[in-house]
Each structure stands twice: as C-alpha cells, then as structure tokens.
C-alpha cells in the first residue's frame, strides 16, 4: 500500500520575493522588524515622531539596498547597525537634548513591574552619552552580548564593555541619588 503525500510547495521567503520586486513581501519584512527598529530609535530619543521618521528612513534605505542583503540574519544585523548608526549620527549632528518621554503610558505591565521606575530608567538612559546609550539599548532591548554589539557599533569589544560598564555605573549612581 502506498500513501500519497502532497508535495511540499517551496514558497520563497519574503526576502527573496522582496528582492524580486514584490512590495507585499517587503511589507512583510517591515512588519516583522518595525518594532525593533522603531524601539531602538524611541529608546534613543524618547520622541515618537522622530523615531517614526528615523524608522521610515531606515526601511527606505533598506529598500534601496535590498540587493546587498544576503540572508535573514544579515538583514537583522543590517537593520540594527543602520538604525544605531543613524541614531548616533542624528544625535551628534543636532546635539539633541533628551526630552521627557511625552506619552509613556503608565500601563499595568508584568507582575512586579514598577511603571515609575521604568519611566525613570528610560529617562536616565536617554540622558547617557550617544555611544553609551546605543550600547545599553542594544544590550537590554535586543539582548545582545558585547561581542555582537561591537560589530554593530564598529568598536573593539573591550571599548564596548567599558562603555557598558560606565553606563551602568552612571545609571546606578543616579538611581540611588534619586531614591
């Protein structure tokens, strides 16, 4: 007795389809990564409209460079790198002052979460120098190790560790002073 097994349909991944000019596939890529790109910018600037604009710019740049993306993991790395570098460049160019988070919703989050502490921490992260801010955001938002962060920011791993150490020291000091 033989069983008839339907032949698996090899459906190309969104990246491949987007590279072939499929806009729906590109929309899928955006939807898959928009939270990551937007949040990197939002935790950097604390300003929703600036973060939206920067995130749009990143995806526009991705669209123009789709041909150079080799794989899904390369795409993720590329988005993190371009977003982080754009944030640092923009902050350096305009020497933006950290603005208060304009609409942080003090919603009930997970158990044991302290919305006021979250808000305070976000503000303190925003006040860090650009590179420290980028390193902390990549470490805690994206859960990356210093060895991965150093490739994104283009610095030796020891420099990244030192930035992270100094940032955490500064955050601890300010939190203690505040409490």
């Amino acid at each position, binding site marked *: 007795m033989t069983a008839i097994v339907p032949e698996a349909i090899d459906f190309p991944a969104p990246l491949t389809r987007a590279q072939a000019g499929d*806009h729906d596939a*590109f*929309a899928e890529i*955006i*939807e898959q990564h*928009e*939270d*990551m790109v*937007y*949040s990197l910018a*939002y*935790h950097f600037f604390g300003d*929703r409209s600036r*973060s*939206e604009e920067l*995130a*749009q710019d990143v*995806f*526009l740049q991705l*669209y123009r460079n789709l041909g150079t993306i080799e794989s899904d993991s390369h795409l993720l790395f590329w988005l993190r790198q371009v977003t982080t570098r754009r944030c640092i460049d923009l902050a350096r160019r305009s020497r933006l002052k950290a603005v208060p988070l304009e609409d942080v919703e003090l919603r009930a*989050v*997970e158990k044991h*979460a*302290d919305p006021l*502490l*979250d*808000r305070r*921490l*976000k503000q303190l*992260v925003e006040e860090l120098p650009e590179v420290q801010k980028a390193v*902390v*955001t990549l*470490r*805690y*938002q994206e*859960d990356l190790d210093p060895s991965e962060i150093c490739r994104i920011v283009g610095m030796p791993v020891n420099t990244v560790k030192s930035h992270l150490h100094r940032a*955490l020291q500064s*955050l*601890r000091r300010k*939190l203690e002073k505040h409490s």
Partner: protein
Amino acid sequence: MNLDNDLKRALRRESPAPGFAGRVLERIERAEETRRKPAWWRAAAASVTLAALLGGYATHKVAEHRRGERAKEQVLAAMRIAGEKVRIAQDEVRAIGSHD
C-alpha cells in the same frame, strides 16, 4: 533592585503607530514616482526654472538701466539751468560795467 532586569523591562520593544508599513510603502511609491518621471519632463522643468531666472535678471537690468538714464537726464538739466544762471549773472555784471 536588579538593574539588569529593570533595564530589560524598561527597554522592552514598543510598536510604532498602526499602519507603519503602509506609510513606508507610500514613501517608496512617491520616491519611485519622482524617479520614473521621464528625462524630457526633468529637462522641461529645468528650462522653465532657467527661463524664469533669466527673465527676472533681465527685468532687473532694464529697470536699473532706466533709473540710470533718468538720473543722467536730471544731472544734465541741472547743469543746463546752472549754466543759464551763470550767463545771466555775467550779462548783468557786464551791464553794470558799461554804465560806469
């Protein structure tokens, strides 16, 4: 307090306003629309701009020239009037001299 956990929670990912992908695609469409406009369209737009610039410059030059001409005429008229006055004064001096 565990700073690592607190930071992870505070810096968790957030979502942009709904419809983000659509807004990006609209920007891409607009950018492509501009890029797709044919070369003759861009040349025509450049010609119109150039013509407007040249027209403005020419108008400015003509107005400047007219102002210069008017100023020259005023100087000549002033000189003519002054010359006439000097001639009258000379005649009067001469007349006084002949009475003596």
